[in-house]
Structures are given as structure tokens and as C-alpha cells.
């Protein structure tokens, strides 16, 4: 039997450890996906907590036919979407980064590159970003992304392609300034 399904069944039979193990297995991925939408770990962790709370409350009704990870990623993406809508998220702009606080050159370059990427990601329409994030961060197949986002494989392919085209343009137009 699928490992996730075993953990779910453990939870359903009254053992919270089943759920705990699912959380520990997936929490980094959930936070990373959320982070790619909000651009800061603190908000990403909040989204991840919300996501797992929703999972906790609905896991009883989870059907074995579905793939747990697909379901989890869909809830993560939806929770991130709600968070962005509620908070009218304003990503940190490159000009707002306090460079003086970053002493180490290597770290500074990394951070600038990271922020530039985040800024670019924030400009991609949410639907495109969801597909791209699940591909790049989770390494999901197009089939798995289609299942998670309830879209066709053709739509997955087109969204990822278009997201990459936008990113390419944004990142070549604004290469981080390596001060």
C-alpha cells in the first residue's frame, strides 16, 4: 500500500502520529510552494499551517482513489491564493532591500538574486505560477500537476511554457545589480 495511505489510515483509526508523519514529510514542500507565492518564510509558514489545519479537519473524508500529495498541493495553492487575496500582498521590491545589513558578499548576491526571482515570480499570473512552482519545486510530472490543479495536461504545458517566457523576459530586463 502507498505510504501516505498507510499514514492516513493510521490517523483514521485514531492515531494522531499518522497525521504528524504526513506533516513532517510534506511541510517543507508546502512551505516552499507557499513561499514562491508570498516571497517570505513567515507568511509561507502561516499558509502551511492553515493548509495542514484544513487537511487535519478533512482527512477523515479523504478517498483512497485520489493521490494525497495532489490533494495537498491543491489545498496549498488555494490557501496561498486566499492569503494573497486577503492581504493584497505587496512583494518586497529590489529597491527596498537593506543591502547594508548583508555583510557577506556571496550571501548578498544570493539574496539579491533570490529577491529578483521572487519579484519576477510575483508578476506572473497566479495560475501560471502554480503550475510552474509545482514543476520546479516539487518536480511533479505534467500528469500530477494536472491532477493537483484539476486542469488538462495541455493547459499545464502551456501555463509552464508561458510562465517561463515571462520570467525570461523579466529576469533579463532586470538582472540583479551585483553591488
Amino acid at each position, binding site marked *: 500500500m502507498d505510504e501516505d495511505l498507510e499514514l492516513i489510515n493510521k490517523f483514521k483509526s485514531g492515531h494522531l502520529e499518522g497525521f504528524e508523519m504526513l506533516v513532517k514529510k510534506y*511541510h517543507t514542500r508546502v512551505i516552499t510552494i507557499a513561499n514562491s507565492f508570498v516571497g517570505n*518564510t513567515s507568511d509561507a509558514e502561516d499558509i502551511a499551517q492553515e493548509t495542514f489545519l484544513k487537511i487535519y479537519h478533512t482527512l477523515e473524508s479523504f478517498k483512497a482513489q485520489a493521490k494525497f500529495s495532489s490533494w495537498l498541493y491543491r489545498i496549498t495553492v488555494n490557501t496561498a491564493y486566499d492569503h494573497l487575496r486577503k492581504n493584497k500582498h505587496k512583494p518586497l521590491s529590489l529597491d527596498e532591500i537593506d543591502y547594508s545589513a548583508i555583510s557577506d558578499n556571496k550571501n548578498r548576491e544570493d539574496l539579491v538574486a533570490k529577491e529578483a526571482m521572487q519579484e519576477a515570480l510575483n508578476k506572473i499570473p497566479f495560475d501560471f505560477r502554480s503550475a510552474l512552482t509545482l514543476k520546479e519545486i516539487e518536480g511533479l510530472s505534467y500528469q500530477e500537476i494536472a491532477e493537483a490543479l484539476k486542469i488538462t495536461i495541455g493547459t499545464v504545458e502551456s501555463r509552464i511554457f508561458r510562465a517561463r517566457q515571462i520570467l525570461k523576459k523579466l529576469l533579463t530586463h532586470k538582472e540583479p545589480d551585483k553591488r
Partner: protein
Amino acid sequence: MNCAHSRRISRYADNELPQKEKEFLDKHIFTCPPCLHELKAITSIKERILKNKVDTNAGFFWQTLKKRIDTEARAVSTKEMFSLDFGSWAKRLIPVPIFASLLVLAFLTINSRNSNLIDAYLFTNQDSSVLELMDNAGSQSEINILLYNQTSFLRSQSIC
């Protein structure tokens, strides 16, 4: 993108092409600068997005979540306790108005019966002791008690 195949590079980079098409692009890329450029751009984006991966402490994350679950559970059980209590109280309270109504009805019946008795008694006997008692009574309620005692006595004597 100046090559007709460039559109397929995104899918190629994701290893999502049918085997034949993949084999074709494996060779094509190294002979076509636009496709090679496209592949490099996509690979660079992949690497940069991966740098956004967050490292977190699983134990701490779980403890925070567990606290939230426990807090929610406590809130729910308190709410349930209250609603249950209220439910049982409500059940206990239902007979109260019925009982009260019956009590009032009984009181009214007895009361009207008493006044009939008293009227009849006063009319027929004009007992001075009763009139005296009534004079001495301070309040209406005392009169009622006195009359009630008196009529009870009469009832026991089978006057009515």
C-alpha cells in the same frame, strides 16, 4: 526564438516529450543556437527557483500546528459542553411552565371553590367568630388563610 522547435524545449526540459521527439531534440539542440539558448534559459530559471526552497524545522512546525489543533479542540469541547448543558437544562426547563400552569389552575379552582364556600358559609351562618377573626386579621392574605382554615374545618364537618 527563431526555430520552429524552440516551443518544444520547455517540455523537453521537463522530460515530458514522447521518446521519438526527445531523441530528435537531443541531437537538434546542439546544432541549433536558438534552441540551445532556450534550454540554457530554462535550466537557469529552474536552478534559481530551486534556490527559493525553504529549510524549516519539522519539530517546531509540528509543535506549532499541534498547539493550534489542541486549542481548537478545547474551544470545540467547551462549546459542546455548554450547548449540551444548555440542552439538558432546556429539557429540564420544559416541564416548568406546564407544571406552573397546572399549579395556577389548581390554585384558581381551589380559590374559587373556597370563595363559594366562604360566601355560602357567611351567608348562612354569619358566624361571629369568623367575622371576628376577619376583623383581627391584618392583611388580605391573613384573611385568606383564616377563611381557608375555617372552610377546611367546615368541609371536614361535611357541611359541603
